[in-house]
């Protein structure tokens, strides 16, 4: 069933989109990873323009994180004060990111920016995931007692000015690091259409020293507002949010995530994580090749604009 996506200006099979949403949903439910960084490159591959893919994916993250935030608020595992500081940084970052995005769009280079960012990020994230999961498998084979490395209790973060008390996290630290973390995640949200939890969560734990109990809820709290803001900015300045695309992906994603979570509960997915990491690396390699190889069509008419 071909449908025409009005904003993306391509027609694709509706079931393909539902299926794509479903598969990414299953993966993210199974492994507990955010779906954004997997979905956006897959959208490039089926021919959705990167600008549309990024803006629409940001929109989808708002919807798929919403129930998570509610659950965390109910369990009181959100540090609202820390979340607000991260959010302020995030909003500024998102605005800067959209500015950069629009500037490069005017130059006709936004595709390159988005794809390059993805090559770099997927490479790093996929590589780290691969190393981690290989180590985990090796450790479980040796069956040695796994020692969790203790994080350092005090680091340079504690010597910065503008200290603030975050009661829910039991922290008294400078607001600069959380603002910067929020800011960089905001930029990522605007340019790549990801929530950024995979960077924010480790940063909150290892840099800020937040207790793990409140980390996930607080990061989700920041993510929904930042991605919502990003979606608005993209929608009002670039007109690149495709509702039809978002709805189809979301339906597939919600169903997929339910299935994925069930699968994840029933089996230890540790072994399969290697496959996920390899998939991320393959996607990265394909994107990189597309950037490097000479395209079949040397010239393309498109949303370059501005000439």
């Amino acid at each position: 069933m071909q449908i025409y996506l009005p904003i993306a200006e391509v027609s694709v099979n509706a079931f393909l989109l539902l299926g794509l949403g479903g598969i990414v949903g299953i993966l993210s439910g199974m492994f507990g990873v955010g779906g954004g960084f997997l979905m956006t490159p897959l959208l490039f591959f089926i021919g959705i323009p990167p600008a549309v893919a990024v803006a629409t994916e940001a929109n989808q993250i708002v919807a798929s994180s919403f129930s998570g935030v509610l659950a965390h608020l109910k369990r009181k595992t959100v540090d609202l004060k820390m979340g607000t500081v991260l959010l302020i940084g995030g909003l500024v970052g998102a605005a800067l990111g959209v500015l950069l995005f629009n500037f490069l769009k005017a130059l006709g280079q936004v595709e390159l920016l988005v794809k390059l960012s993805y090559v770099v990020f997927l490479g790093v994230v996929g590589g780290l995931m691969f190393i981690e999961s290989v180590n985990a498998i090796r450790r479980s084979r040796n069956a040695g007692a796994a020692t969790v490395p203790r994080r350092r209790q005090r680091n340079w973060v504690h010597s910065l000015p503008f200290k603030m008390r975050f009661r829910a996290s039991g922290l008294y630290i400078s607001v600069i690091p959380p603002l910067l973390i929020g800011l960089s995640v905001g930029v990522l949200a605007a340019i790549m259409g990801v929530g950024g939890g995979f960077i924010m969560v480790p940063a909150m734990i290892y840099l800020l020293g937040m207790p793990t109990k409140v980390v996930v809820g607080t990061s989700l709290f920041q993510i929904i507002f930042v991605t919502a803001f990003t979606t608005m900015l993209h929608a009002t300045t670039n007109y690149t949010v495709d509702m039809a695309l978002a709805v189809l992906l979301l339906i597939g994603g919600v169903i997929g995530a339910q299935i994925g979570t069930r699968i994840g509960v029933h089996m230890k997915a540790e072994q399969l994580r290697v496959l996920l990491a390899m998939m991320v690396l393959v996607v990265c390699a394909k994107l990189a090749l597309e950037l490097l190889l000479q395209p079949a069509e040397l010239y393309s008419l498109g949303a370059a604009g501005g000439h």
Partner: protein
Amino acid sequence: MRKFLVVLDDSRECLNAMRFAAMRAAKTGGGVEVLAVIPPEEFNHWIGVGDLMREEARERIEAHFEVFAKWMRDKQNVDPKLVIREGDPMTEILAQIRDDSAIGVLVLGAGVDKKGPGPLVTELTRSSGSLSIPITIVPGDMSRERLEAIT
């Protein structure tokens, strides 16, 4: 020795379940086993982060358990044992009952909330027919004196 199994979580009603189990165990010469379940974390992007989360959850549970354990040792002369399992609470409780045949009674605390007695009580009473041991449900707002009187 017959053991009472109590579930430790963040709810208020587990306090009364804990008291009841300890008092009954003291009176009848039984033991207390405290089960805490670490639910699967929804963020699992990094294995290192996941390990740290479980580690911290474990430390929290141990600290929480120590509070009850101290009271039980001092006041009731019962030395409780802590068991930590990971996974879905329902499945893990059933698995623990199956694995440890010395467990004689499962003690649950019922929440006083209008919405119902809490997910564990609701779920477990529904499948109580197929359990291998009886369940005792302790109302969450029963007073301490009243508990002492009936145990």
